[in-house]
């Protein structure tokens, strides 16, 4: 199980930039000054990309920790944290 945790860490590491890429691509494709839908509104995209980027970075860090074996053993008590 620990090997699976580590190998999947690479997937989480790669997934984060892919998510950001799709969000930016979605913004470029859908922002439209003449459009009336939410997805045409640049402000909403700015809010979403700016809140999602740190979350995606968090996913990368999670992947990195997994790859480094940080989750092989979860703490049993607060002293181990």
């Amino acid at each position, binding site marked *: *199980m620990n090997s*699976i*945790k580590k190998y*999947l860490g690479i997937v*989480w590491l790669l*997934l984060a930039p892919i998510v950001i890429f799709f969000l930016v691509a*979605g913004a470029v494709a*859908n922002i439209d000054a003449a459009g009336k*839908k*939410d*997805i045409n*509104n640049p*402000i*909403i995209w700015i*809010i*979403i990309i*700016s*809140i*999602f980027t740190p*979350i995606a970075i*968090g*996913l990368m*860090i*999670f992947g990195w*920790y*997994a790859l480094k074996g*940080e*989750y092989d053993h*979860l*703490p049993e*008590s*607060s*002293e*181990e*944290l």
Partner: protein
Amino acid sequence: MNQTITPKTIRSVIAASSVGTMIEWYDFYIFGMLAKTISTQFFPEGNATAALLSTLAIFAAGFIVRPFGALVFGRLGDLIGRKYTFLLTLVLMGGSTFLIGLVPGYKTIGIAAPLLVLLLRLIQGLALGGEYGGAATYVAEHSPANKRGYYTSWIQTTATLGLFVALGIIMLVKLNMPDEQFNAEWGGWRYPFWISILLVAVSVYIRLKMAESPLFSKLKAEGKTSINPLKESFRHKGNFKMVLLALFGAVMGQGVIWYTGQFYAQNFLETKCNIEFEQSRTIMLWAIAFATPFFLLFGWLSDKIGRKWIMMLGMLLGILTYRPIFQTFLEDTEVVSGLNEKHPQPGIVKIHTDNKNDSIITTTTPHYSISRIHFYTQKTDTIYADRSMRAGHSQEKIINKKLGQSLYWKFVGLVFLLILYVTMVYGPIAAFLVEMFPTRIRYTSMSLPYHIGNGVFGGLVPFIGLLLTTSYPADPLVGLWYPIGVAALCLVIGVIYLRNKIDKDVTD
């Protein structure tokens, strides 16, 4: 320590925490549910500044301010205590809700109206961000190890009950007055905001009488509280890796299951299936009423068999059944064929003149389909006053579908299933989060992942749904791939990385 807490005390603790949290959810929901009327009163169309403020009020409050509130109040809760912090969030939430109900409309005070509403909405988001972590921590720190899941599951009922109360009060007010009176500047839509102050006053009174969490009091007496909870939570690797695990292995999936089961479903019934206002609301109300006890059941069960597998099963069921359930909603409300044309009924014609002097003729005709759905077709003809324009414009749409009895209860059953999944992922999660983090930084550490999972991942369900529907218009259910995808990712991470062990000792 827990031995000194009597059953009466724990009942008071649960009641004080749950009622307040429920009221906060109620306050937060009524703004969203009355968004259409609020936007007419405060954010008029055609005004670019008002449109920008409206966007910020809707999106910034949920996505940015809620997680920020989790940090601000989480820190405060770990520094000065749980009781005073979640008392403060309650007062802020109740006060801002009440004040939204008092802000005069755009017609009266101009741009000051949307500015004030935006400010108050942001305070609401901030307060909500700080409330949940405090309530969950407060109850958990009073609970014995073998009942922690059950006792904290009372807190978990509050989000759904807040939705129930909000739906019920708005429906009650709306059904007791004509639409014009409800939507007027000082009309019925303000009542749910005003009612909030009474609910909050009662809840503040109850909470004031409560004592501080025994675990936090002990830490404080020993001088062991955290000096910098934010730094300890997010810059200390040992704890930060658990914050990330909580977010990606549990709360992210919980957020999308929670949002899809309650809000996406309601919106789908109203806008995609075109079910009339009262029926779509009562379907939700019945389903919530039947499903709510299951929060307690799964909280209780998590004390017996662990938290992990119950939450994972809820996500798995959502992943497997969302598309079939929503497909059934669509198919059962399809009325393309089967019009009872042998007995056509006369339409009701209304004519009014708009501000360009164009005449709008609306013909509303009742129908009865073979699938036992009453519905109306509404044909709108426009005769332009300006003769140089086209001779006229006509469009027809199906509105206000009303389901027959058997179909109605079938829909209640299906929505009940959706909310049952919510109870599985949401019922045990407070105990799960509390057990992951140490007392001195618990409020901060559990609040942030919760509000990112719930507010950001859950709150994005309609936006990403719209994005997908626009990109792939051939599939009316394409929007469901977002919650299904996020829940699937969370399920994989949760199954592989999480442990099913119940932490017996949360005093450390």
